[in-house]
């Protein structure tokens, strides 16, 4: 295809795109061309401007600077509808912002047609279903009428993601933008997605594939570009048969001139004393009870796919939920927290899985978010000390290298990685006894990921019982001394990291009872 001049002409060109929010210039002149039949992977650390660039393309920010050309002619993306008209479809990372709750799966699939008035908005399933089925068939989803007429709320995260992808493809886009499409998918689903991406590429669609995961590049991308600090920095094009991408160069340009450490060598530590003992605990409604000991002085990595019971385990220990059955002991004493405040008082902390819904407070400053769990330590009697609070906020910025204008900056105006550093870091200020980190690296760039793992290991070295829960084996291997595999609520494997290789972990994860 590279020899065909028509195919090589760019479908979509971005020329000097700039975008600012108040005084904050996020995009400083992005120039990028997308070509039919080519997958362009866009990488960038958190805060590099990826999300902003995607939104410019999707018509969300019409007041950007620079020019967008579609097939050579300048276009104004004044609205998402305009973007769709020009054949640009985007599958956003945040599902809850694009799925319409309260409607059926079928209605969500044909939503574009409904808002364009091509299909009646009143519930006429007889007319919706054939079209919905047609769209679902693009991905071979094989959803029955029973699934299509369900409330979309009943779909899991992975299926919702597939729904959105199908919906975008139903519009026969010339340009498809995928924003971290694999972040919520299981291994098998990722394979299916890659196959689909390849099929679309061969059909001549220009694909912009936004990701954090370097491991996906070889499989999926023909071209790699790196966005850093609002500009494109590294561009590599690969033809079939060419040498693989220069990964160290990609990583260096993502992180900038600051030091790039080779993935750090983990010195495995084995803990002795048991912190948390679980006995006959049932995590899910249909699974056998498990026993599990979590020890001080080591980082336990709990690996499992979505629905394996990871969050149930973490939330149960933290007292945010009750186990379906079973008992717990903490330092040998019976422990049955009735409320999260009880866990926090005992030094048992949880960083929840969903940062936006479970840890962030809209409009709250970095300092306020950081001090909320430990208000007693920044107050006298019940009176808050602004000075002490400010110190905690500043310490958060200094200790974790949080990029912020100051401790009073609203947390939601920081990038995802910096937000995560704060919601993780605030607990480390409270000298944890047990620290539970549920998917702490989701939507976080390599730099922040390294900082968070290092801090987690520091806590463990200082004697804490640290538990990291993730569906990503690589992430877990980087941080954990011991790996526990959960499958459908049951422990399938429990080994020290040095005694087990990736294949064995992946095999045990894929074995279903």
């Amino acid at each position, binding site marked *: 295809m590279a020899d065909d001049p028509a195919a090589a002409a760019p479908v979509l060109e971005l020329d000097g795109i700039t975008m600012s929010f108040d005084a904050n210039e996020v995009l400083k002149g992005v120039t990028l061309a997308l070509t039919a039949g080519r997958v362009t992977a866009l990488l960038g650390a958190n805060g590099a401007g990826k999300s902003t660039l995607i939104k410019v393309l999707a018509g969300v920010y019409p007041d950007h600077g620079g020019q967008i050309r579609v097939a050579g002619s300048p276009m104004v993306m004044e609205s998402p509808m305009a973007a769709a008209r020009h054949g640009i479809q985007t599958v956003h990372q945040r599902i809850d912002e694009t799925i319409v709750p309260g409607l059926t799966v079928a209605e969500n699939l044909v939503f574009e047609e409904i808002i364009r008035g091509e299909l009646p908005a009143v519930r006429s399933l007889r007319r919706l279903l054939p079209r919905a089925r047609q769209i679902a068939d693009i991905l071979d989803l094989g959803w029955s009428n029973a699934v299509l007429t369900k409330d979309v709320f009943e779909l899991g995260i992975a299926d919702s993601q597939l729904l959105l992808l199908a919906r975008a493809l139903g519009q026969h886009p010339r340009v498809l933008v995928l924003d971290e499409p694999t972040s919520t998918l299981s291994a098998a689903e990722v394979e299916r997605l890659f196959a689909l991406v390849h099929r679309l590429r061969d059909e001549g669609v220009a694909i912009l594939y936004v990701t954090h995961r370097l491991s996906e590049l070889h499989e999926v991308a023909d071209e790699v570009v790196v966005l850093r600090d609002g500009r494109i920095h590294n561009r590599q094009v690969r033809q079939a048969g060419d040498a693989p991408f220069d990964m160290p160069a990609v990583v260096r340009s993502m992180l900038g001139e600051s030091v790039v450490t080779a993935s750090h060598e983990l010195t495995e530590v084995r803990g002795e004393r048991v912190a948390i003992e679980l006995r006959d605990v049932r995590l899910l409604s249909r699974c056998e009870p498990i026993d599990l000991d979590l020890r001080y002085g080591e980082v336990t990595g709990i690996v499992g796919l979505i629905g394996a019971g990871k969050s149930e385990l973490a939330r149960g220990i933290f007292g945010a939920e009750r186990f379906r059955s079973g008992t717990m002991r903490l330092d040998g004493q019976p422990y049955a927290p009735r409320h999260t405040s009880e866990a926090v008082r005992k030094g048992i902390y949880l960083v929840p899985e969903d940062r936006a819904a479970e840890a962030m407070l809209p*409009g*709250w400053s970095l300092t306020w978010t950081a001090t909320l769990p430990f208000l007693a330590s920044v107050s006298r009697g019940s009176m808050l000390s602004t000075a002490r609070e400010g110190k905690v906020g500043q310490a958060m910025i200094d200790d974790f290298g949080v990029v912020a204008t100051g401790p009073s900056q609203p947390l939601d105006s920081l990038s995802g990685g910096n937000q995560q550093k704060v919601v993780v870091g605030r607990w480390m200020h409270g000298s944890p006894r047990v620290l539970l980190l549920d998917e702490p690296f989701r939507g976080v760039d390599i730099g922040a990921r390294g900082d968070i793992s290092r801090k987690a290991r520091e806590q463990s070295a200082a004697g804490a019982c640290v538990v990291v829960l993730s569906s990503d084996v690589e992430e877990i291997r980087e941080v954990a001394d011991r790996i526990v595999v959960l499958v459908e609520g049951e422990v399938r494997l429990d080994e020290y990291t040095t005694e087990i290789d990736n294949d064995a972990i992946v095999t045990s994860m894929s074995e279903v009872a």
Partner: protein
Amino acid sequence: MPEVTRVSTLDRIRDAVVRYGFVAVTVVLFAYFALSEPAFATSSSIFTMLKFAAVTAILGLGVTFTMVVGGLDMSVGSTAGLAVQLAAMTMVFYNLTGPTAVVAVIVGGLVVGLLNAFLIVVCRIPDLLATLGMMFVIQGAKLIPVNGQSVSSGMVLRNGSTAPGKFTPDFLKIDRGFVGPVPLPVVIMLVLVLLSWFVLARTTWGRVMYAIGANPEAARLAGVRVGLYHGLAYVISGLFASVGGLILVSRIGQGDVNAGSSSLLEAIAVALVGTSVLGLAKPNAWGTLVGALLVAIVLTGLTMKGAQYYHQDTAKGLVLLVALLFSFTISRRKVRYTPAT
């Protein structure tokens, strides 16, 4: 490498308007009435206005607490009405002392608050619906012991005898008393405003309440005892409503069956107006006070200008809408919870 930051003059003006616009409107209106009506700006007239504002402001403060935790107390008006009945019954029917009546009223307010807290926190009924139900229940139930009649000194009871007691002079002093030159209700109002501001802005309790209003799940996962503080806001609201009722009944000197019923919407309105003041975009004690003062200024001014009674509701509505214009239309800022210390 720092980029040139450009904050346009327009943005700066907008910011100033959002921050101080509402206070400016209040001052301008005051000046207008003061210049056009010589009687308006006299000290007695000003104290009358402040007294007028006191009941609304105190009820509004209670509503403010419930708005801070993300709810809304619809029962403050009827709780004030209950206070009126309780005070009248204690003194007129049972011939007890003024202080006893005060205790009865306060206990009544606390009980209502606890019931609201129970319905919302334990039974998990949405705030608005629980307090709406409570509002109707109180409105009817408070009239059961008095057979639906207003209670006044010397009234004839159903068994033919005359009611034994009357409103005691010390009780009537609640509204008519002074501290120095300042009427007692105004002092009570200012003390409660200061107290509320202190609790909300300066203590861990207030911080936790704002956290619950911002994201209750995030608050819970930070170890906050969400139910406790959520309920506490309603207990405070019930308490404040009963204090407002106390001033009200002391003012009218009888157990009027309708007392307090008009206070609900005013209290909610001033608390909402309060969210716009100073551009904080969150419920706060000083804002609620400014809201109550503005309503008092407008109503007193209109009355002096000889406006018909029905213009009062229109004026209140316009005040509320202007306030909402400030926070929703002019301000580009999203709802903020960062402190303006």
